[in-house]
């Protein structure tokens, strides 16, 4: 097989260890921790061409490329990142990081708590988006990056990108927040709560300390993922893909898996529940719920963004109902009120919330055009 000239190719993960305690917004302290990360491309002499990619609920630091040539899947945003792709690794130095509380090698509930020698489990504190941003900033310090050319993310990742410009306004030149929101609505929190309840009420959950029992709340996690998955897709997209197709001829008049959509969802749920940690899932959904950067600014998002010299690209997708265009427009309105440079685009797509991971042609062209300007601006 000839190597793909637009792929970053074979990559490997790195681990950064931090011994300085991190005080979390909730008051808890993580005495020491590690963050898994990957980098692609080369940091230029001016250190001006670095881009941080923030992952969403189920993502990781493995953003592009493959660990082995025969890996079935590349990193989760391989379509966007690589030589000649919109986030062009010929020009940019790209950093992907697994967030604190995750389950891909960074310190999280399934890691060993140095105080006990046991997995953290229920003792792992709830972290919020701002805690992640602080942890990411320490990684940036470690890598010698004073200011990011861009911080980019979709969904929960878009929240981190936005939060960066509130917490460290002078460390971000461009914020690209895609399919995201300035805070969740009641409906959105409600979906997360049902997902959490599926996990919390699973008999194998054991209050979050299931590791010691050699089990994990697979059914709960699977249900949580199935529910989430439905909300990430559009009615149109699901209808187009599955319609009312049956696995077998005719109705079975029972409660087994009959419709194609049922089979698909169960497969997706199983696949996810086999590799993801339930405690991390709980934690990530809570971080989503708590996100509200305006909260410490009297509820005013323009006030929260006032100190930011960054430029913004806000992108929404027409069929995304979990993070609808209306929510992105709230962010845009705040940016307009704060007189910040902003581009807003609403992409026609059938892919619902998941569209931020897809390759709809106008979306790719928009990202490409925007990031070419960023590259010129930072001399990348």
């Amino acid at each position, binding site marked *: 097989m000839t190597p793909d000239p637009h792929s970053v190719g074979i990559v490997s993960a790195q681990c950064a260890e931090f011994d300085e305690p991190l005080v979390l917004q909730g008051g808890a302290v993580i005495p020491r921790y590690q963050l898994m990360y990957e980098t692609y491309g080369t940091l230029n002499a001016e250190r001006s061409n670095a881009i941080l990619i923030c992952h969403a609920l189920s993502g990781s630091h493995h953003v592009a490329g493959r660990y082995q040539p025969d890996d079935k899947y590349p990193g989760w945003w391989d379509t966007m990142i690589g030589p000649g792709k919109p986030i062009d690794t010929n020009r940019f130095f790209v950093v992907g990081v697994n967030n604190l509380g995750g389950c891909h090698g960074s310190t999280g509930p399934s890691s060993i708590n140095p105080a006990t020698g046991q997995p953290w489990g229920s003792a792992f504190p709830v972290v919020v988006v701002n805690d992640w941003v602080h942890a990411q900033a320490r990684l940036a310090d470690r890598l010698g990056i004073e200011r990011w050319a861009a911080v980019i993310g979709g969904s929960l990742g878009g929240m981190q990108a936005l939060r960066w410009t509130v917490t460290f306004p002078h460390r971000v030149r461009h914020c690209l927040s895609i399919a995201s929101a300035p805070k969740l609505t009641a409906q959105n929190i409600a979906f997360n709560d049902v997902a959490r309840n599926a996990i919390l009420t699973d008999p194998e959950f054991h209050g979050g300390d299931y590791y010691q029992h050699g089990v994990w709340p697979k059914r709960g996690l699977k249900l949580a993922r199935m529910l989430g998955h439905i909300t990430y897709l559009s009615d149109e997209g699901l209808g187009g893909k599955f319609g009312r197709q049956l696995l077998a001829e005719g109705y079975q008049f029972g409660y087994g898996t009959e419709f194609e959509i049922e089979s698909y969802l169960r497969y997706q749920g199983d696949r996810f529940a086999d590799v993801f940690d339930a405690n991390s899932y709980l934690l990530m959904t809570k971080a989503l719920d708590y996100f509200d950067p305006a909260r410490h600014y009297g509820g005013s998002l323009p006030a929260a963004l006032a100190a930011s010299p960054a430029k913004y*690209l806000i992108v929404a997708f027409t069929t995304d109902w979990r993070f609808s265009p209306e929510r992105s*427009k709230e962010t*845009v*309105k705040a940016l*307009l*009120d704060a007189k910040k*440079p*902003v*581009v*807003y*685009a*609403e*992409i*026609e797509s059938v892919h619902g919330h998941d569209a931020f991971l897809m390759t709809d042609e*106008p979306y790719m*062209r*928009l990202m490409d*055009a*925007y990031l*070419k*300007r960023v590259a010129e601006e930072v001399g990348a």
Partner: protein
Amino acid sequence: MSELRPDLARIAGWIAPESRVLDLGCGDGELLAHLRDHKQVSGYGIEIDMDSVIGAVGRGVNVIQRDLESGLAGFEASSFDYVVLSLTIQSMRHVEAIIDEMLRVGRTGIVTFPNFGYWENRWQLALGRMPVSETIPYQWYNTPNIHLCTLNDFDALLVSHGARITSQIVMHQGRRITFLPNLLGSLALVRFEKD
């Protein structure tokens, strides 16, 4: 650097340096990019067409993708020095609403449109056919233009919406027309303020 289109150059001439401009239907951002580069003007464009949005992004212009027909909700009152609507009003459904919105959001409004009173249009009508010309290059059945008007018609609309006309230029083929403007000019540029 490429030359600015003559009508856009006239608009640019009306805009003071270092002001804030909102360009409605900004296309690929030609005017805003020019104003930024030559007059340190800041502001935003509004555009619905995706290809144009991407073109504006390529020029580094702040562009908000939305439908002008839904108004300018989200923009604070009096938040811009100028609001520009260039060669768009004739194809808009809600003409009165957008004029009111321009007067709400900006201190000065600038509208350009094809002048239906141009003599060639009148002549073609006199001969019994709908006008097709350089500034109205469509057949009646495929035109996006649903609200064509003459210079005098537009002035009357502005006055009825509480606006005062502060300047008016009429052009034909990139040149300014001063004699019998409503007859000899195919393109009208009107600047106005709240009265």
